[in-house]
Every structure is written in structure tokens, then in C-alpha cells.
């Protein structure tokens, strides 16, 4: 089955969220459906969760990956905040993947903080899915 890691025989659990005052949810809903069609277990954090809420859901639900999307340019504050909360909750191994309207200079900053992907508009879903699978494997290896 697609999305099941042959090596681990495990389904990827992924949380999608928009952690700021940004109700434009077309992108996250499309991504959520695409992740599900790719065989992942998808959780959606609803609208306007704080970074802390996102991190807590991620920990409570024991997800492998958190996928964050913002279109209001709050990514530089909100994405790292989710990452910090994960660390505070002892879950630094949960992978954080970003997307939205992210200029190249911000992309570098985010990547330094361990937030990967940072996909822009028009990115094929296939590339995003491929990236999520890659980082999920990384997390599973660290679980062992």
C-alpha cells in the first residue's frame, strides 16, 4: 500500500495546521486530502490553533510529522514557535515541515531551525508527499 513504509510496515501519522490568524484553508485542506490518499493518517488541527496547541496535539496524538502552512507571512514567528513547544514537551523528534509564501531568505532561516520543506505555491503534491515520507523515516529511525 502506498504510504506504508515497507521497511517499517508503519503508517505515517501527520498533523496539518495553520498556527496563526489565517483562515485561508484551501491549501491545507488540499494537502490533508492528498496525504490521506497517499495512505497517511491525517489529523487536522482546525482553525487558528496557537503554536502551543499544535505542539500539544502533535504530542498527544503521537504524530510523526507536523505540516504547517501560512499565507500571512507569520511563518518566521509561528513555525519556530511550534518547534520550540515540541522541544519543551520533549518531542523534538517530531518532524516539522513548512509551506506557504516563503521567500528564499526565510527558507534558509527556517531550515537552520530544523523546519524542512518550506514549499511555495505551485509545488506538486507528489514532491510534498515524498518529502514527508523521507522525514517520517528519519523520525522512525530515531525512535528505535
Amino acid at each position, binding site marked *: 500500500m502506498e504510504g506504508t513504509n515497507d521497511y517499517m510496515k508503519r503508517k505515517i501519522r501527520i498533523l496539518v495546521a495553520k498556527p*496563526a*490568524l*489565517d*483562515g*485561508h*484553508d*484551501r491549501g491545507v*485542506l*488540499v494537502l*490533508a*486530502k*492528498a496525504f*490521506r490518499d497517499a495512505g497517511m493518517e*491525517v489529523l*487536522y488541527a*482546525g*482553525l*487558528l490553533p*496557537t503554536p502551543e496547541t499544535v505542539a500539544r496535539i502533535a504530542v498527544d496524538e503521537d504524530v510523526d510529522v507536523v505540516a504547517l502552512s501560512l499565507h*500571512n*507571512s*507569520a511563518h*518566521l*514567528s509561528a513555525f519556530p514557535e511550534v518547534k520550540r513547544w515540541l522541544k519543551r514537551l520533549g518531542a523534538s523528534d517530531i518532524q516539522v515541515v513548512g509551506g506557504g*509564501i*516563503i*521567500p*528564499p531568505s526565510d*527558507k534558509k532561516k527556517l531550515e537552520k531551525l530544523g523546519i524542512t520543506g*518550506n*514549499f*511555495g*505555491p*505551485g*509545488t*506538486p*503534491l*507528489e*514532491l510534498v508527499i515524498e518529502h514527508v515520507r523521507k522525514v517520517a523515516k528519519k523520525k522512525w529511525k530515531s525512535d528505535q
Partner: protein
Amino acid sequence: MPDKKSQSRAYRPQIENTTTREKTNSSEMKLKDFYLPEDAEENYASRIADPGVYPYTRGIHKDMYKGKLWTMRMFSGFGTPEDTNGRLKLLLSHGETGLSVAFDMPTLYGLDANSERAHGEVGKCGVNVSSLKDMEIIFKGIPLDQVSTSMTINAPANILTAMYAAVGEKGGTPKRNLAGTVQADILKEYIAQKEWLYPPEAHMRIIRDMMVYCTNHMPKWNYISISGYHIREAGASAVQELAFTLADGFEYVKMGIANGLNVDSFAPRLSFFFNSSINFFEEVAKFRAARRIWAREMKETYGAKNDRSMKLRFHSQTSGYSLTWQQPLNNIVRTTVEGMAAVLGGTQSLHTNSYDEAWALPSEKAVEVALRTQQILAYETGIPDVIDPLGGSYYIENLTDRMEEEAYKYFKTINGMGGVVNAIKNGYLQREIAATAYAYQRKVESGEMKIVGVNAFTKENEQPINVLKIDLKAEKIQRKRLQEIKLKRNDNAVQKSLERLREVYSGDENSMERIIEAVKSYATLEEITNIGREVFGGWKEPTII
């Protein structure tokens, strides 16, 4: 930014073998190779009719653009109230009389500038309003009896209306003479833009209060602009935009009638706001069908007698979603085609997007090109010279009929659920849109849908042309001002006004006078919305995916 090499690699296999695809439009209607006389609407007098004649398929005015061109209304707003005041005055000095104000995200969500959640957002996508003081500054020195002001505000529209009334009163313009519009269409917020404060019933009651109050006391105030724009941007097809928006409109009409208003006393104040997207003929047909449906339903179902209640007036905006950050100059062409569709569809006013908006808020240069696009359409092309020039085209008339038929199928489904509010609460409308958005994305991925610069004719290594700058200046100024107001105001009066608001919110009495009283006491936006949050609670949307 995606890695361009892997992006074009991912798309390449699909792009090459899709020349024989079946032609459909955004509404999944299969299209013939060409249309014949028998495909077109035959009943001219009752279904099409001349411009200005019921059911207004060809336009609501007899003379359309020969009498008056559409209004070129460019929406903007930024920074501090002082910044926006300067911009509005500049526009007035250039001869504009129609002002249009955009608000920042905290204001749209009913939060003050000093709210923790407002950090980084103050004054960014529009001007910040945390109390009446800010509105006083925005409109300082502007003669409110001589301008009309459009405010793009939804969930807290009652509060902003009250503030505008209070500013008017202080400057000597009574409420009765204030002209303008608030968007206030909460149904489309639940369906698409997702900026609400309370549950649907509570917001509908607040709109009812505005509707009744404005009909009686602010006759020049358009207390609602029924919007399909956001529904479309969220992923809806043209038919879904048409059907869901008109269904919302009928919901407000029913509410007015149920609250004892004569339909002709308030319906002439209702206006619409549609998207004009990239599938040219489909858009033109959508606008034509919208007019026909509205006229018929207002007359036959809701008993309107006044022609003005039956005439669907609309503002339109070109599609932000159709713009690409890849090869951004191409967006000028997209916007031109979309603007043409709006004009050929008979719009009353138009906002054209700027080519750099897929990147960030538009630069001045790009805004100028967008305005010039409208001016070229208006003054060079001859397009406005003849009314509804596409009317009578076998294809356009056929498509107009089919848009109408498909819209009625949705009306039936929505009515079967007991109306729009139920169709929101059970998640039906949101799921329909999400499904269309996903299907669209799938088509882009497969190459069935081609987007120049994105999955076809791509270029490597494109650089950003415009980047949103984070500026905390407005936030600092707004926070400081808010602190000062809280020190200066009479706290006792604030508490009293808020308690009185709590009482009317808890009952069923009209709340508008109490809102006006609260804003006048300098209760802040968030203090006022918090009363609503306490009385009505919040709302969590149903599961959509």
C-alpha cells in the same frame, strides 16, 4: 520555494500527452465543439429581455456603461490609522468619492492591537482599529456627508458600523446621511473565509439587528455585501460560487421578512460581490445567470414589487488564486482577461489585482498597472460601447441556462437540509468546496489543467519580485495608543455600557444602540467582542476532511 528542477521533472511526463482531453469548464460541464441555434435560449422576451428589463439577464440598466462606466474601486488599507487617513485624503484630492478601507487580521478577528495573538499582524494586511479613537483618526478631516465608505469587515461589522456612526455624529453628520458599505456577510465566512467570532445563529442575529436598525435609521448604509468572491477563492467552481452566494442572499432576505420588514424596504440595499476568474465564457454566463435567478426569485418567491429589489447589483474582483508567483508578469494578462469577463458580464464596479500579489501585498507600481488595465478596457477597447455584446451567442446563452439549472440543483439540496445555516453546520458546503479544490489540484498535477509557468512552459531559478516586509512600527504605535485610551476613559461608563450590551445580547432586543453606546465610551473592539464571546460562545467548524 520548490526545487525547480524536481518540480519540472515531476510535471513533465503528464504535460506531453494531454492534447486530446475532453473540454470542460470549472463547473465540470462538458463542452461541445461548437454551439448551434437550437442550443441557445429561445424565449427572448421572458428569459433574456433587453437591458434594464426584467429578468435583467443582459444587465440591470437600460444604458449600462453608456450612461456610466463601472466604478474602478481599488481596495487598500495599511499601517496605522494616520497612514490610512493620509491615503484616503490623497485619493479624495484626486477626485475620488468612494473610499475603500481594508482592515488587518486582528481587527477582522475582533482582537485588540495588544492581544497576544495580534503580535506581528497589526497594521499588516490593512489598518488596525482597536477603539473608536482609531476610527476618529482614519476619518479625520474627511467630510462624511460627501463621501461613501466601503469597509471590508465581517464578523465585527456591527461594531465598525457603530464606530462610523459615532464618528459621523461627532463631526456633525447624522447617521441618516452616512453612505457606505460593510461586507458583513457572515455566511460566506463559515463557508469559505473562516473569519467568525460566534456560532452561526448568533452572527445571524447580529446581522438581523444591523438590517433592521439600518433600514430604519441609516437608509444609505449598505449593511451587507453578499460575497461569492471568497467562496470561489476557497476552491469552489463557478456554479458553486453562483449557487452558494445566491443561497446566502436568499437566507438574508428570508430573515428580513421573518423580522417584519417589507421586502422592498430593505432588498434594494442588498448588493453582491463576485469573483471574476480565468475561464472567460463561464464567468460571463455566471454573471448573466445570477441576475436572472435573483430577479425571478425576488419577484416570484419573496414578493418584491419594486424593480430595485429584483436588480442584482454587483462588485467584482479578478481572481487572486489564478495568479502565479512564477513568471509574475503573466498575471497582467490573466487579470486583463478576468477584468474583461466582469465587464462583459455587466459589473457595477471592479477591482483588478496586481501582478505581484502571489508574492505579497502589491507594490505601488503593480497597483498602477492593475488600474491602467481597467482604464484600457474602458477607454481603448470599445468593449463598453455595446451592452451585453455576447448576448445571443449560442454558446453564451446555452451556458447561462446551464449555470442556472445547476444552481437550482444546489438550491434544492441546500433547502433539503433546511437552509444554508444547516448546510454549514453539517459541513456540506465546506466539503463541496474542498472536494472541488482537491479535484482541481489533481488536474493540475496530472497536466489535464495547464497553468503557464507552473506546470507548463516553466523556467528555472526564478527569483522573488516582491517580498512582504515585516514592520512592527504600526504595532508599537497602536499598542501605545490603546494604553493611553484605557487610562483616559471613564472606566465606569465603559463597564456600564458593556453590561447593558450583555443584557441585550442575552435577550432578543436590537443590539445596535447598545453597540453604539459602548464604542462611544471607548470600550475597545476586543472588550465588545468578548461580551459576545461570553454570551454566545465560540464556534468550531464541523469536520471537513
